[in-house]
């Protein structure tokens, strides 16, 4: 149960030892390396790797770090990004996070990352360290982190395990983010049985900096010092590498006896807060040449990536690393995923000043090495060389796979089984009951139980947060310049048609940003899929990437970065393919934001876009019949683009987009958010379709009467279909013509009661 520590020295497998013992059996399979991958490592090195080298290669060549299955597909993002789209991009795919020029000398960086598996094992710490990791990514770009978001997915809302996982994840996201002092400005909570046993915990961070302060992760300048700072390195998060320390491998020379170390890490948000302030002071004083956060793969990743991206080699004295545990081996130190650490490259003349800043913030900082003029990454342990590798082969030249891709055999049957034959509610009373049932269903019910656990005010720049369509923060207090972000994905749509479904995710995030009044400018993503060894999953993945890239090209906004998470499955069953898409928008003055809701009494309600009988993959089919089949709604990105332009043209007092649950849900939410009723007439001749269809490219807007003619004229001109639905009333009732009135208190009880009843 507890780690026992070796008395005396740890067995160390040096390079010399490796050269003289070529035939040692190394447990590379236990570390996840394939036979040919291991053979390639031996070929690169011209000998067998040492324990420490094996540890480095195995983590860096893992799917998570090397993108070996996804690389060939992700390349498509590059080929579809035009020069025009690239114009505002200061850093793109390949950097820690994408960076976008938002004007006035400001640059914004944002990225989403997954922390799915750790959050299933230990929901609180898994989610907490997920937030911590993405924040360090943003910090490593030289930016001040400004806000976080958390797209989450869980099994069925009433499943017992969801009751274990969800409260822990939410407490972890909040516990870390709140203590760190970053406002949570949005996210998602989605329930579907496919996530049972494999919840998705994605975390997004956005940060800002002056354009000239952009820091890229590279180690250059021979003689520059490598400084590790932040938390001490411990035995947490070592996971698989502990096999290197097992008796069988380390043999008689004193294995540490550590068998199964917990692969979870515990986060220290206080340390991270201090680390942020310390880093920003270091950046501000110009004391940093290059910087890299330590996340997955710890020092293995940081040293090899810094060296690989630089113009020289690197020498690291591993015995200088401050440790939290005794008896750690070099392989363990290199693989430890202890949180809240950063690695910087610093000019020798700046080292003292660097150390003074760290001391001011009580941050431990240690010079562990330097940049050399060679082209090798050399790591020593008490004077003996334990790693001597070409860093690019570790960090950037890992294996690349062209995995088999095959459209699943059941795809046709799935698409053929559309929702047309499902019994529908009919008549006023049934429709009324359906509106209430939908509003109370887990995927549509108020997220307040979750979002109340998140600080959305800290830093004083939050202009929109939940329950708005997009989160919005002010970047520049003097000018009011700000950014808006939304993350979206409907995995059911993606399951039915991965290409179109991913474009629908893009369309929704784009629309949510547009509805806030911002101009969408860039895209990030977190592609959560099943096993890449399943050709059907690879087909979903390939289609999703193509759909996203082609969609971005059509919208004229680039993908600036992202993250791939494979192996999200329970047994042989993969999750719904879930490419979460995050769209970033810019607004010149946040005072011009469009609030989410209904507007003021007397405002005219106008529905933008066209409603078709599109219920494949809809929330209604899911809630009423547990049905998934047919085609997802049609995508029309050109219309989304025009819709966004119309919204930016002004004249709108409030807005709310239509997505899951259709017009019914949008009306319910808009009324409850504004605390005002309204009276509307449904479009078309089928009230059921009007209420529950999930056709895309639609928005409900509230327009003051004086603006109405001008606004609708602009819609007509832009070829955006519009239709007057009714007016905002000073009443406490949602009145839909032909359906018995829905008093707001009754709607509120339905909408707000669900999550508290489930989770306490």
């Amino acid at each position: 149960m507890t780690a026992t520590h070796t008395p005396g020295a740890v067995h160390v497998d040096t390079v010399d030892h490796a050269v003289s013992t070529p035939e040692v059996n190394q447990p590379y399979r236990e570390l996840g390396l394939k036979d040919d991958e291991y053979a390639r490592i031996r070929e690169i090195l011209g000998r067998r790797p040492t324990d420490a080298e094996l540890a480095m290669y195995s983590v860096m060549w893992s799917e998570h770090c090397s993108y070996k299955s996804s690389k060939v597909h992700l390349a498509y993002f590059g080929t579809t990004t035009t020069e025009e789209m690239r114009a505002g991009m200061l850093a793109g795919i390949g950097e820690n996070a994408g960076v976008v020029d938002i004007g006035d000398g400001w640059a914004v960086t944002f990225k989403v990352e997954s922390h799915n598996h750790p959050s299933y094992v230990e929901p609180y710490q898994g989610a907490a360290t997920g937030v911590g990791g993405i924040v360090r990514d943003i910090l490593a770009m030289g930016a001040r982190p400004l806000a976080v978001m958390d797209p989450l997915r869980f099994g069925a809302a009433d499943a017992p395990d969801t009751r274990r996982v969800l409260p822990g994840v939410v407490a972890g996201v909040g516990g870390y983010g709140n203590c760190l002092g970053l406002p949570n400005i949005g996210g998602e909570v989605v329930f579907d049985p496919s996530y049972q046993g494999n919840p998705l915990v994605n975390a997004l961070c956005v940060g800002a900096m002056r354009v000239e302060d952009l820091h890229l992760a590279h180690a250059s300048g021979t003689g520059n010092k490598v400084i590790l700072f932040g938390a001490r390195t411990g035995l947490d998060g070592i996971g698989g590498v502990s096999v290197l320390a097992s008796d069988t491998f380390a043999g008689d020379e004193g294995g540490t006896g550590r068998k199964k170390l917990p692969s979870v890490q515990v986060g220290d948000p206080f340390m991270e807060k201090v680390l942020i302030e310390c880093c920003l002071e270091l950046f501000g004083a110009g004391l940093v040449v290059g910087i890299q956060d330590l996340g997955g793969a710890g020092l293995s990743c940081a040293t090899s990536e810094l060296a690989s991206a630089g113009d020289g080699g690197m020498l690291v004295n591993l015995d200088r690393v401050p440790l939290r545990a005794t008896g750690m081996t070099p392989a363990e130190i290199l693989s430890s995923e202890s949180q809240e650490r950063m690695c910087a490259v610093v000019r020798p003349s700046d080292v003292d000043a660097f150390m003074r800043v760290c001391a001011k913030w009580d941050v431990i900082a240690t010079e562990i090495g330097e940049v050399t003029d060679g082209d090798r990454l050399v790591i020593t342990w008490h004077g003996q060389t334990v790693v001597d590798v070409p860093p690019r082969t570790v960090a950037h030249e890992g294996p690349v796979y062209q995995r088999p891709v095959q459209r699943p055999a059941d795809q046709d049957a799935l698409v053929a089984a559309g929702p047309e034959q499902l019994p529908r509610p009919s008549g006023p009373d049934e429709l009324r009951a359906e509106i209430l049932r939908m509003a109370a269903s887990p995927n549509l019910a108020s997220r307040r139980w979750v979002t109340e656990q998140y600080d959305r005010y800290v830093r004083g720049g939050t202009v929109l947060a939940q329950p708005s369509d997009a989160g919005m923060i002010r970047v520049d207090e003097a000018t009011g310049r700000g950014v808006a972000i939304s993350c979206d994905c409907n995995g059911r749509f993606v399951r039915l048609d991965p290409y179109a479904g991913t474009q629908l995710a893009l369309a929704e995030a784009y629309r949510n940003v547009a509805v806030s009044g911002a101009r969408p400018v860039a895209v990030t993503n977190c592609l959560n899929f099943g096993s890449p060894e399943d050709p059907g999953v690879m087909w979903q993945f390939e289609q999703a990437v193509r759909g996203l890239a082609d969609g971005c090209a059509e919208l004229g906004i680039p993908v600036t970065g992202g993250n791939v998470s494979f192996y999200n499955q329970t047994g042989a069953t993969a999750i719904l393919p879930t490419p979460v898409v995050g769209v970033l928008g810019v607004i010149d003055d946040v005072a011009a934001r469009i609030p989410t809701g209904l507007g003021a009494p007397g405002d005219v309600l106008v529905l933008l876009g066209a409603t078709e009988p599109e219920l494949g993959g809809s929330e209604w089919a899911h809630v009423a019949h547990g049905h998934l089949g047919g085609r997802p709604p049609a995508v029309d990105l050109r219309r989304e683009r025009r819709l966004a332009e119309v919204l930016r043209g002004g004249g709108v007092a409030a807005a709310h987009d239509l997505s899951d649950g259709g017009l019914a849900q949008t009306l319910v939410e808009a009324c409850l958010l504004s605390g005002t009723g309204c009276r509307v007439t449904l479009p078309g001749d089928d009230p059921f379709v009007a209420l529950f269809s999930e056709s895309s490219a639609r928005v409900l807007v509230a327009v003051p009467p004086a603006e109405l003619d001008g606004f609708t004229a602009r819609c007509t001109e832009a070829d955006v279909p519009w239709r007057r639905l009714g007016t905002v009333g000073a009443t406490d009732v949602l009145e839909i013509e032909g359906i018995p009135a829905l008093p707001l208190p009754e709607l509120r009880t339905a909408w707000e009661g669900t999550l508290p009843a489930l989770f306490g």
Partner: protein
Amino acid sequence: MARVVVDVMPKPEILDPQGQAVANALPRLGFAGVSDVRQGKHFELEVDDSVDDRTLERIAEGFLSNPVVEDFVVRRVES
């Protein structure tokens, strides 16, 4: 009725930021000589005599502690 005490502590290899914060503060407060602090939870349960040790163990392991990151000790004390 018996009183049962359950102490739950972070596993030795797991980071304990709370204990660390205390340990770092003590010298600043003028207390020397404390080299390490770990902080955990202390539960006191009033338990029916019918509840056996195996049940207490299950309560401690499955509910009061998180076996992934914590160890626990159960003690019956005089009531």
